[in-house]
């Protein structure tokens, strides 16, 4: 069958019934936020990827580009957020090419929610979609089952409570771009410190009306690794050379000469 393959489902169910441990391949710990400001919208994310209680990647990218002016922050299963945003990016491009218009955030939102609903939450993507389009700055969120929200400020992921606490305390109706960036990165940093599933750095993407979207990769790096107190490098020549053997090879090459047609 074309499409996502279910061919191993019965085998895996059988194996787990026999007592084989089923691997868990999720990475759900994340803090992502989005915040609107006058004339634009900003989204931010932490950069920790976890697999159970292990930090799989200390500096991963959770901000995905769907269209030049529409970006998306993803929480949930890392591979699912990546693939679903790539698929939507392709569809949005085809769509705008066919329509001859700039893609809109609601279009992205509808495509994503219909796709996620179809898979009944088995595609574990929790997304904050943001962007500027001819209708103005837009900020929306989607859950894995296909439900969507609209808001001036949003937070998703395991660190969303920590981030939302900061947003609720400091958000106001009229924010400047600088204030919004500050607020979003403060919210992410709150997730980095207070949520165990989130950590490392703050990534930010700013989308402003009439300007190119700007991605600030590692906008804040509050977790730079300390310099080691000692050097553990061995200087050259520490290991004694016991024996040296040099082999010579005859190199045989074949060249194909192309004749004229």
């Amino acid at each position, binding site marked *: 069958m074309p*499409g*996502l393959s279910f061919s191993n*489902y*019965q085998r895996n*169910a059988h194996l787990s019934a026999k007592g084989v441990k089923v691997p868990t391949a999720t990475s759900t710990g994340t803090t992502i936020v989005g915040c609107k400001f006058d004339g634009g919208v900003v989204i931010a994310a932490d950069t920790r990827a976890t697999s159970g209680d292990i930090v799989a990647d200390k500096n991963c990218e959770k901000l995905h580009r769907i269209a030049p002016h529409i970006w998306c922050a993803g929480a949930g299963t890392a591979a699912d957020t990546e693939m679903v945003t790539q698929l939507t990016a392709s*569809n949005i491009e085809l769509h705008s090419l066919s329509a001859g218009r700039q893609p809109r955030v609601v279009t992205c939102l509808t495509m994503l929610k219909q796709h996620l609903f*179809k898979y009944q939450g*088995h595609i574990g993507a929790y997304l904050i979609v943001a962007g500027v389009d001819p209708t103005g700055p837009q900020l929306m969120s989607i859950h894995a089952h296909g439900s969507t929200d609209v808001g001036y400020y949003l937070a998703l992921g395991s660190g969303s409570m920590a981030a939302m606490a900061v947003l609720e305390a400091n958000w106001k109706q009229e924010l400047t771009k600088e204030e919004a960036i500050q607020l979003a990165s403060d919210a992410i940093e709150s997730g980095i410190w207070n949520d165990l599933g989130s950590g490392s750095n703050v990534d930010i993407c700013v989308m402003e009306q009439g300007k190119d979207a700007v991605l600030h990769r590692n906008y804040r790096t509050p977790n730079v690794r300390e310099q080691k107190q000692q050097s553990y490098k061995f200087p050259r020549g520490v290991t004694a050379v016991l024996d040296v053997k040099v082999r010579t090879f005859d190199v045989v090459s074949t060249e194909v000469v192309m004749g004229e047609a």
Partner: protein
Amino acid sequence: MRDGQLNIESQLNGRHPLQARLENWEETQMNMRMQNYKRTFGMGEPIRRTMEMQIVKETTLMPAVVGTPANIHLDILKNKDLDVDWEDVYTGDDQPLDFHSELEKRMGI
């Protein structure tokens, strides 16, 4: 018997809850759309669309062994000509039927 002896039990029980839903997805969506057309435009609309689809299906003859046909006409009628989905990326590892079997199936022999 093309795939050898099949275990009927494994085909019926213990399948992923999503699998049946996805296998019937296109049909379900099409039925829903036709139902809506019927309510808004009257019975003529779904009849015309089904007829057009049938004509395109019956007149496209590209054997699967030569390569799966692009079926752009069908895609347009299904409103799928501007979409990419997993089915377009992961086309499945099903072996294509040989030409004779395909034609037999098509002609209902």
